């Protein structure tokens, strides 16, 4: 079964709006990572948050982590059409293997 589960499965917004995606996981983690995948391409790492961190920022991205609820959220502020992509959370398991959720498909309309 998937360690990470994203919610919602799909999100459609207008340019300039904020987009929030959520991820839940099942077991204890060392860190949680978010990746973006443009259509037909590979995954690109966005941000990593460690288990002892609660919030992290990178440009227009804000990630939160609540280990008591085993959940994380990714917020993209002031979205752009170029942000249209699938977004995945991933958690680390043994030997540094990543377990991915099924992703959130974000569509940003110009």
């Amino acid at each position, binding site marked *: 079964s998937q360690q990470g589960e994203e919610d919602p499965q799909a999100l459609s917004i207008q340019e300039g709006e904020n987009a929030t995606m959520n991820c839940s996981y099942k077991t204890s983690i060392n860190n949680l*990572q978010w990746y973006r995948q443009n259509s037909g391409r590979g995954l690109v790492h966005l941000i990593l948050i460690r288990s002892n961190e609660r919030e992290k920022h990178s440009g227009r991205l804000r990630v939160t982590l609540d280990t008591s609820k085993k959940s994380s959220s990714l917020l993209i502020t002031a979205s752009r059409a170029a942000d249209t992509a699938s977004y*995945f959370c991933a958690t680390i398991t043994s*030997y540094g293997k990543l377990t991915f959720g099924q992703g959130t498909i974000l569509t940003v309309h110009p």
Partner: protein
Amino acid sequence: DVKVTQSSRYLVKRTGEKVFLECVQDMDHENMFWYRQDPGLGLRLIYFSYDVKMKEKGDIPEGYSVSREKKERFSLILESASTNQTSMYLCASRAGRRALWGQPQHFGDGTRLSIL
């Protein structure tokens, strides 16, 4: 920047053929990974390698094998391709020292494989 290169973006093969998917990384990373990605199932790990000639099964190794003869190259082999192996295949690499196991993985652009 790390570059992970997969030899083909699109590949069409026939049932029963032996298929080779190649992946090369240029950052001297110890760890390399093969995933397949299917709608509704997300990314699933097929095999990974933490050193030359070393390999470990992932979550769905059946029907696949791998080869790591050189540090920079990791090959995925479909011994006898079947239609249920039609998928997007993604290769990734990551530095291998234990302290870096939590670091991000770097992905290639994927190979979309169709088995007819």
